[in-house]
């Protein structure tokens, strides 16, 4: 049988892969958004594992809302990205330093 700790360790590994992806792909905003999606899926796996093993459906309800918020976040993030590309002509993070003092 697969224990709860297997699922938790799997989701922590996925979480850290997403975190390392943010470090590695620091100059590419679109890959940063994808890494955030990966982190959210890892967290959702955590919720569903606890929901299954504790016999409580509230965790799955929470995952439902996390999916909703993540979809909204992706839509607005990609809209900002499109706007940034239209204004700056590039989506490199190093170009977007106009707020730098």
């Amino acid at each position, binding site marked *: *049988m*697969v224990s*709860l*700790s297997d*699922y*938790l*360790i*799997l989701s*922590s*590994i*996925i*979480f*850290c*892969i997403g*975190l*390392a*992806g943010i*470090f*590695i*792909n*620091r*100059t*590419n905003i*679109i*890959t940063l*958004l*994808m*890494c955030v*999606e*990966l982190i959210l*899926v890892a967290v*959702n*796996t955590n919720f*569903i594992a606890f*929901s*299954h093993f*504790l*016999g409580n*459906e509230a965790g*799955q*309800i929470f995952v*439902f*809302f996390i*999916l*909703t*918020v*993540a*979809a*909204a976040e*992706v*839509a*607005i993030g*990609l*809209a900002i*990205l*499109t*706007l940034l*590309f239209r204004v700056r002509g*590039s*989506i490199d993070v190093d170009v977007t330093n106009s707020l730098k003092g």
Partner: protein
Amino acid sequence: MSSEQIIFYILSFWFIASSLAMIFARNAAKAVLFLVLSFFSAASIWILLEAEFLAITLILVYVGAVMVLFLFVIKMLNIDKSTLRAKFAGYLPLGLIVALIIIAEMTLVLGGAQFGLEVIPSPARHGADYSNITVLAMQLYTTYVYPFELAAVLLLIAIIAAITLVHKKESTHKKQNVSEQVNVRAKDRVRLVTITSPSKEKK
């Protein structure tokens, strides 16, 4: 090793492998495709955890809509050939060190001594008459009905915000200026000219 464990380890392998391929992909479009595989493995693991509705939602909403939106933006912005990995080598060791430390710490905390089968036994599988959708819907439409409505409002706000952000202001649509229309006078629109007929001039 039971068949459930074999399935879990196969799915976990593909989940981790495709996630690693995603963060190391040089091409943004390939990264999206690896992320699709990773989401698919995640949905399979969720089905293993008897969360069928959320697994199907993940595939339909994420793989079907959000990832296609990512691909659409990547192709529209035409950035898949640009130099995206300028500082790759500079941040790779730091990222790997941080990730490995976090994995080690979490493995210590979440190991078998704390969350193993002896502490939390695996629950019995539900029968064929169990419906995950019915259980979720009962919770969602009774206890969590206000958060459910708020989520709908949040999606509406996201739609309006996204459209407002990328909408071009003046060039794409015509609109009427009401004050100019009210203030217009007859002499602005109608010009009376007196035309003398050439035939009468000859007489």
